[in-house]
């Protein structure tokens, strides 16, 4: 008997929740703000769905409504990807250790 591929994806999903659980608990509290901005950036990987939706041309007309929604989603996700990673970078660059002045 074949297993429904959904079950495989569901397994990946559940295991990823566990990975997330353990990884996030090990994040130091002082980096919780960068954690939020970086999770924000990576959740914009939803852009892959947007790209597929935007570039799909099933018929002769160049843009149908579905394509347009795809393109709109691309802009939104792109703002998030660049904004999220760069602002995280900017924050992380500020965390410095004590200088050896003692």
């Amino acid at each position, binding site marked *: 008997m074949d297993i429904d591929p959904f079950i495989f994806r569901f397994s990946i999903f*559940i295991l990823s929740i566990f990975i997330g659980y353990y990884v996030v608990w090990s994040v130091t509290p002082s980096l919780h*703000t960068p954690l*939020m901005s970086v999770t924000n950036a990576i*959740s914009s*990987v939803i852009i892959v769905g*947007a790209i597929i939706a935007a570039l799909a041309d099933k018929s002769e007309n160049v843009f*149908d409504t579905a394509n347009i*929604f795809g393109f709109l989603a691309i802009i939104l996700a792109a703002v998030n990807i660049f904004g*999220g990673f760069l602002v*995280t970078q900017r924050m992380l660059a500020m965390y410095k250790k004590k200088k050896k002045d003692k």
Partner: protein
Amino acid sequence: MISSNFLAVFYLISGVLFILALRGLSSPETSRQGNLFGIIGMAIAIGVTILSVGNFSTGFLYLIILLLLGGSIGAFIAFKIPMTAMPELVAGFHSLVGLAAVFVAISAFLNPEVFNLGFPGEIKIASLIEMSLGAAIGAVTFTGSIIAFLKLRGLMSGSPITFVGQHYLNLALGLILLSLIFYLCKTQIDNLFWTIIIISFLLGVLLIIPIGGADMPVVISMLNSYSGWAAAGIGFTLENTALIITGALVGSSGAILSYIMCKGMNRSFFNVILGGWGATDQLSSSKTKEQKPVKSGNADDAAFLMKNASSVIIVPGYGMAVAQAQHALREMVDALKKNGVKVTYAIHPVAGRMPGHMNVLLAEANVPYDEVFELEEINNDFANCDVAYVIGANDVTNPVAKTDPQSPIYGMPILDVEKSKSVLFVKRSLSPGYAGIDNDLFYRDNTLMLFSDAKKMTEDIIKSL
């Protein structure tokens, strides 16, 4: 064109890189490398997706243009945003993820062949459930984050908006949503799908308006979590491993942060979500406070006290962020250190408007992160400290949380500022904090109130040092 197996392997690699990006945040040293992993993961995901579609016609050109357009807007915001505005920035970004999820779901609904989900009017039931869940959570995230953004930005009052039957209305809307999804699967009628999205937009607004300003750390974390679940829902629809992994990571990350924030306030998650805190008790506390004597001082008194202390603990709060006092604060600490005073910083989990807010502000002011401590690490040190300098914090130091079971903040872990030999409170007035409760500490003998703007007072202290 790449085969779909090949594609899946690359998505898996992206997912692993995202896990490493979060793992890097376990210490500041590894965090920058982690962020780089995240960027590589994203580049791989986008790159292979474009290759797999293999359509390099006009649409591709538009794709590149829009990517650059969105990217430059994002980059511009990222470089320009002041660190004090991080909470609203994150809320704003969450709204974009939510809306993007809605758009992708709409696109998949209108054009299911592209994603191998069936045909319009004959979409696979499982896909239909997944895409409507993704769209609904995305829509709630979108409008909820907009409200959070407006509240954080001060464009909308931070006080809770409540009305009779609010929770029942939300519950009813939730049940309507579920039944609409059920009927959508049965009938495949377009209008049901649009109704689901519209109701979800409405629900997002209704869920966030009753939550007050001080609870924003929980709200932001919660919306962070929602944006993850929305991404995971879309990931199931598109059968995309990278999205499923990422959605699960982000969803659990936001959930953990919400839990930490709730614990920092000793409130249950539902208590926060149901909202309405801080709207009561304001009157009763304002009546009594006039009668009690308060010792107030000026910058010279504070400078004298701290200069002659051997150890000082700084307790920053949201007021420091509002006054942008972090740079002045660090200069004051530098001056104190020159006088041989040992200075450390104590940060309460819910200080500020988002998790880790104070840490970022102090880092921005070049405070070394190994001088900054969390509540559990430093709380015992207050007993041996000469001066606690409380700048813009209030409720998180209120001893009533330990003594008065009637108090709304009873049981909340607090910084034991009261145990230090003297306490300096920089505050504009005696007004109670967001929780609306009077702080007993203001009237203690060893407390000196410094009535002024946090930044101005700190600068004046630097002058008299």
